[in-house]
C-alpha cells in the first residue's frame, strides 16, 4: 500500500504499482496524456517500469479547449 497524490487528490494504491497501472485504473489513454511525477516529466516509454511510492505527487494532464 502507498499513499500518493493524484492531481491534488489523495489516493491509496497497491504496492508495486506502476504509472501504467494507474492509467489503466482510471481508464486513461496513455497517448492522450502527459505525466509529471514529483515535478519531473516522465517519458511515455517509462510508464510501465516507473513504480509509485509513498508521498509521490502525480500530475496527469491532457489537452482541453483553449484560445
Amino acid at each position, binding site marked *: 500500500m502507498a499513499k500518493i497524490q*493524484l*492531481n*491534488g*487528490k489523495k489516493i491509496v494504491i497497491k504496492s508495486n504499482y506502476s504509472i501504467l497501472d494507474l492509467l489503466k485504473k*482510471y*481508464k*486513461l489513454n496513455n497517448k*492522450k*496524456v*502527459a*505525466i*509529471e511525477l514529483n515535478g519531473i*516529466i516522465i*517519458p*511515455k516509454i517509462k510508464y510501465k517500469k516507473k513504480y509509485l511510492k509513498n508521498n509521490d505527487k502525480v*500530475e*496527469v*494532464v*491532457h*489537452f*482541453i*479547449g*483553449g*484560445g
Partner: protein
Amino acid sequence: MTKDLFKVAGRSLKSRLIVGTGKYKNFSETAKSVKASGADMVTVAVRRVNILDKKKPILTDYLDPKKIIFLPNTAGCFNSNEALRTLRLAREMGGWKLVKLEVLGDKKTLYPNMLETIKSTRTLVKEGFKVMVYCTDDPLLAKKLEDNGASAIMPLASPIGSGLGIQNKVNISLIIKQSKVPVIVDAGIGTASDATVAMEMGCDGVLINSAIANAKKPILMAKAFKDAVISGRNSFLAGRMAKKLFASPSSPLKGLI
C-alpha cells in the same frame, strides 16, 4: 499567379485563420465551428485530467490531432516557469514542438508580461521548440522576440476576449513592416470585419476564439471569419486605390448628352 502560401514555423497552412477551441457550449459545437472556419490549426490548453469523471467527453474525441494541427498554449500562466512546464508537458503529450507562448502579466487585462515572455522564448528556442508568441503591440519588443528566435509574432489587437478590434493600427503596421517572420493578430478581434481589416493591413494571419465562440451562432460566425480572412488577404494582395480628397466620376464625361 503564384500561389499565395502561408508558411509558419516550417508548416504550410491552407488557411490564414487560426481558431481557438475554448468557450464553446460543447465539443460538438467546437468541432463544427472549426470545420466551418476552414482552419487547419487550432489552439488548445493543457490542464489536469478530471480523474473522477471518466465518462466525460474530451476534446480529442472531437478533434483529431492527426487531421488538424494542435497548437498548445500556455493560457493562465503568469510566469516563465509555469509556461515552460506547460509546454514541456505538451511536447511529451503530443510529440510536437510547435507551441503558442503567452505569459500573462495582469489578471484584469490579461496583458502579456513581455519580460517573462522574452525570457521564455529564449529558453524554448534553445530546447528546440518552434514558438509562436502572443505579445503586446510594441514594435521594439516584437523585434526583440524575433531576434530571440520566435517563429511568429502575435500582437494583440486589444485585450483577450474584449472584442474591441484593432486599437492601434499604427503599431500593428510597424510590426508588419519590420518582421521577417509571420505576424498574426491574436486577441481582441470582435467581428468578421475586424479580421478583414487586419488582413488588409498585411497581417499574415489572425487567431480568433471569443469572436466565434461567443457569437449567437458560432458556426455561422466561423464561416463569416473564413470569408473575411480570404477577402482581406485578397484585398491586400490586390492593392487598394489611392485616397483622394475630392470626387472622381466613375462614368466617363466624354459623349455626355
